[in-house]
């Protein structure tokens, strides 16, 4: 009885800790084999890069325009209209689009679209024992499959962040226009409040998001087991872990950035 209860509490915790440890080891191995010659992953890198680009451009476009038109655009716009200061919406978009929603929505879409596709792909190969076959042939799966995905997702996520910021600002423009206000003041407060620190913070953050997405997706794909339901299950677990990991990291990063760079939160 006591033993069963203890097992019930202990075993899930143990498996979570083991998985986190395994992912850390995979990260270390990936970085090590990315840096160490030879470099056979060029072609696969280009393929994965284009794959993520082709899959994500439309979902990301729709999502960023929708979220920034609704959340910061309409809500904050409504609030500012009460004070007759709608021109300040541009300054607010530095906070929302560049610092928060741009990176977060990019991460959500990349994790939900590209990350799940990678897990499904690698999981299918694992189930069909292709990964074992590769190893038998002397091809290192980490170097040839994980490294290109890791590098491609880091770069593509950082680049998509810029894309998300641009379309986030388009959402803000739509909101401004829907209040019947001119766009000039919006851009003027946007550009006076935007700072280089905000932009590099945003891009640095999304680069690390990309790394998290790639590692979790590859790990879950390569450890899929259990037939038909197994691949689906690993996609499911992978995307849940990615979301929690991304937002936990986001909190720490944003807090550190805001506390160590007080100049970015001064309104100009």
């Amino acid at each position, binding site marked *: 009885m006591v033993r069963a209860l203890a097992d019930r509490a202990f075993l899930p915790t143990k498996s979570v800790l083991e998985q986190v440890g395994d992912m850390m080891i995979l990260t270390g191995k990936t970085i090590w084999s990315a840096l160490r010659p030879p470099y056979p992953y060029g072609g696969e890198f280009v393929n994965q890069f284009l794959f993520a680009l082709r899959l994500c451009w439309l979902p990301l476009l729709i*999502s960023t325009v929708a979220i920034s038109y609704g959340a910061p655009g309409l809500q904050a716009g409504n609030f500012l209209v009460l004070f007759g200061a709608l021109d300040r919406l541009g300054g607010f978009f530095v906070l929302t689009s560049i610092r928060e929603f741009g990176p977060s929505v990019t991460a959500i879409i990349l994790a939900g679209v590209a990350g799940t596709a990678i*897990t*499904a792909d690698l999981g299918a190969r694992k189930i069909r024992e292709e990964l074992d076959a590769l190893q038998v042939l002397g091809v290192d799966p980490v170097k040839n499959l994980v490294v290109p995905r890791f590098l491609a997702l880091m770069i593509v996520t950082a680049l998509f962040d810029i894309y998300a910021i641009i379309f986030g600002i388009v959402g803000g423009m739509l909101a401004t226009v829907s209040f019947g206000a001119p766009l000039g003041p919006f851009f003027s407060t946007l550009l006076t409040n935007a700072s280089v620190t905000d932009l590099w913070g945003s891009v640095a953050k999304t680069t690390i998001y990309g790394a998290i997405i790639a590692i979790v997706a590859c790990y879950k794909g390569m450890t899929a087991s259990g037939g038909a339901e197994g691949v*689906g299950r690993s996609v499911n677990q992978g995307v849940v872990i990615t979301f929690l990991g991304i937002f936990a990291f986001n909190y720490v990063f944003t807090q550190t950035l*805001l506390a160590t760079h007080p100049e970015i939160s001064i309104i100009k």
Partner: protein
Amino acid sequence: MTWLTVPRDWIASFGEIAKFCGRVIALVWSGRVFVFFGEALRQAGILILGSTLVIWGLAFILGLQCGIEGAYFSRSVGAPANAGVFSAWCDLREIIPYAFGYMMAAKVGTGLVAEIGAMRISDEIDALEVMGISSMTFLCATRLLAAWMVLPFVYIAAIGAGFLASYIAVVQQIGEVSSGGFFLIFWMFQNPPDLLYSLIKGMAMATLIVLVGAYYGYTASGGPVGVGTATAKSMVLNVVGVHVVGMLGTQVFWGANPRAPIGG
């Protein structure tokens, strides 16, 4: 795989998905699902035990996020005592619905595809039909009913988790406003209709996610690989759907009326 694969996929399957959703909703609405009420209760139990904690966890993390952004923003406009406005609006109206939608899509949506898809692949759905059990009622409608029974409560508790996190971030962590001062502003800037609107938004997302998940699982094909691909595809449609529903909800409920206790 070309640049237009995703939109072409959506357009091609839009009619199918709409038809499927209509049929499942009709099964629940007409009460035929109550033949399998036990199964619906079992699904509700699975939902409570399996998914609530991660949903609250994500709501909590995003509530912390709202809290610190609000605290720094209101400090920068020289009114740190007003961090409550930002927290109240950010949590209740926008971020908690999104957090709920994201985690529903990730945990419940893909879980449904994996589960029902595996049944389709191993011919269990055909076996159900052969035994004279309507598989759509037994598998899809019961899950929708379970979601409708359980999720409003899960959602309201998620709002609570977000509020708690914002309180911790603003009052305990940043500490520029007293607890009483925070709550005065915080409660002044929201009222029960806001909670109801937020709940409607969250439930619309949840309904969409359950239906899309059930559709992709029910129509999965192509072996174990097919289940994985269907799971990934359902996620694409779900994350976009969550954002679109969120935007429409904001536009409908708060677009023309800020519902703020300021001015006339």
